[in-house]
């Protein structure tokens, strides 16, 4: 296990102004979501491919990780951005009241931990549409604390808060002074659930290097450190889009030896997380939405 100080943080928020978000929500109350998909496919995604730095990152992802040809990588980047647009539109569609078909694999894993008095950690990733999990994996007993990007737009935060208002859920924004880490720890010691992404730097710059899809990549050390610090149980939750109107949620246990040294615990837990993430991304390569250079550059 390697630890390092890196500077791979990425500030990403939902595209558009508050007016645009509110207009989209109103439109989606009346219009079939596929009409918006078609509009975006023709008029928005091609422009995004030209102006967005994320497009270059995803192109590299298909070239380096998937070893696609130049032409195939361009097509794959378009497809990735098109699905990502659909996921964003779906998010607004849900806020407007539209329903999606959701299947859940491993719900019993969540319920087993939910029924225990101790807090537990739920690790997510920038794959598919994780927010959908929040509407379906809700706890009856424990407060759910989700670590979110602090720079997100007001409309997005307001609608999230409105949708989750009756679900005993709290959004914890990542802060520059990293006070969010203490809030997460306090939540866990109070027997609550803490959800955080483990594939992007938020706050601390310490990382753990793992072989991911055949190449070394840096994962943030923080989530694994917080989880193992007091020996909490950990699950991985990933949500992928499987049809235009359907999502699949997968919940798995991430086991680690709680009697081992802390360093070994972090190594085991991060390994379990990365292997699960790899399984999901191998099956849904076009739903990798981590728009920053994630893999280490090859040594010259």
């Amino acid at each position, binding site marked *: 296990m390697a630890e390092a100080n890196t500077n791979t943080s990425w500030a990403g928020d939902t595209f558009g102004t508050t007016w645009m978000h509110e207009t989209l929500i109103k439109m989606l109350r009346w219009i079939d979501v596929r009409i918006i998909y078609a509009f975006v496919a023709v008029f928005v995604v091609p422009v995004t491919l030209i102006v967005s730095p994320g497009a270059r990152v995803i192109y590299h992802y298909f070239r380096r990780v998937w070893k696609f040809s130049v032409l195939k990588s361009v097509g794959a980047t378009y497809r990735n951005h098109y699905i990502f647009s659909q996921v964003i539109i779906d998010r607004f569609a849900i806020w407007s009241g539209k329903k999606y078909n959701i299947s859940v694999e491993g719900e019993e894993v969540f319920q087993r931990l939910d029924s225990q008095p101790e807090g537990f950690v739920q690790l997510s990733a920038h794959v598919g549409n994780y927010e959908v999990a929040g509407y379906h994996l809700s706890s009856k007993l424990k407060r759910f604390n989700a670590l979110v990007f602090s720079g997100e737009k007001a409309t997005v935060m307001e609608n999230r808060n409105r949708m989750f208002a009756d679900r005993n859920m709290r959004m914890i924004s990542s802060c520059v002074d990293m006070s969010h880490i203490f809030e997460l*720890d306090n939540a866990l010691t109070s027997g609550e659930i803490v959800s955080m992404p483990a594939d992007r730097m938020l706050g*601390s710059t310490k990382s753990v290097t793992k072989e991911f899809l055949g190449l070394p990549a840096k994962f943030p050390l923080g989530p694994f450190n917080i989880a193992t610090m007091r020996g909490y149980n950990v699950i991985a939750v990933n949500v992928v889009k499987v049809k235009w109107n359907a999502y699949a949620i997968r919940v798995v246990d991430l086991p680690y030896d709680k009697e081992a040294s802390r360093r070994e615990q972090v190594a085991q837990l991060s390994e379990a997380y990365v292997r699960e993430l790899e399984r999901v991304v191998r099956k849904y390569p076009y739903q990798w939405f981590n728009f920053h250079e994630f893999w280490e550059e090859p040594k010259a």
Partner: protein
Amino acid sequence: MVNEELINELKGHIINALHLEDITPDDIENDAPLFGDGLGLDSIDALELIVMLEKKYGIRIANPAEGKSIFKSVNSIAEYVDSHK
């Protein structure tokens, strides 16, 4: 004024808790800042120190603002431990 024994004990615990293999207790000055320019620790490390204080001394710090002044240096941690033992 806290005793040298406690300070040395704390330095050992800090090195173990944060896996600072390349550092010996003598490398850590009693008044040097632990975060930022000093040992270069961050909040994840602060959380490790909070857990260390709980495990070794039975002291719980729940307020992150309080943590900032406590974890300023080895001396400030020692003073806090000494007054809460």
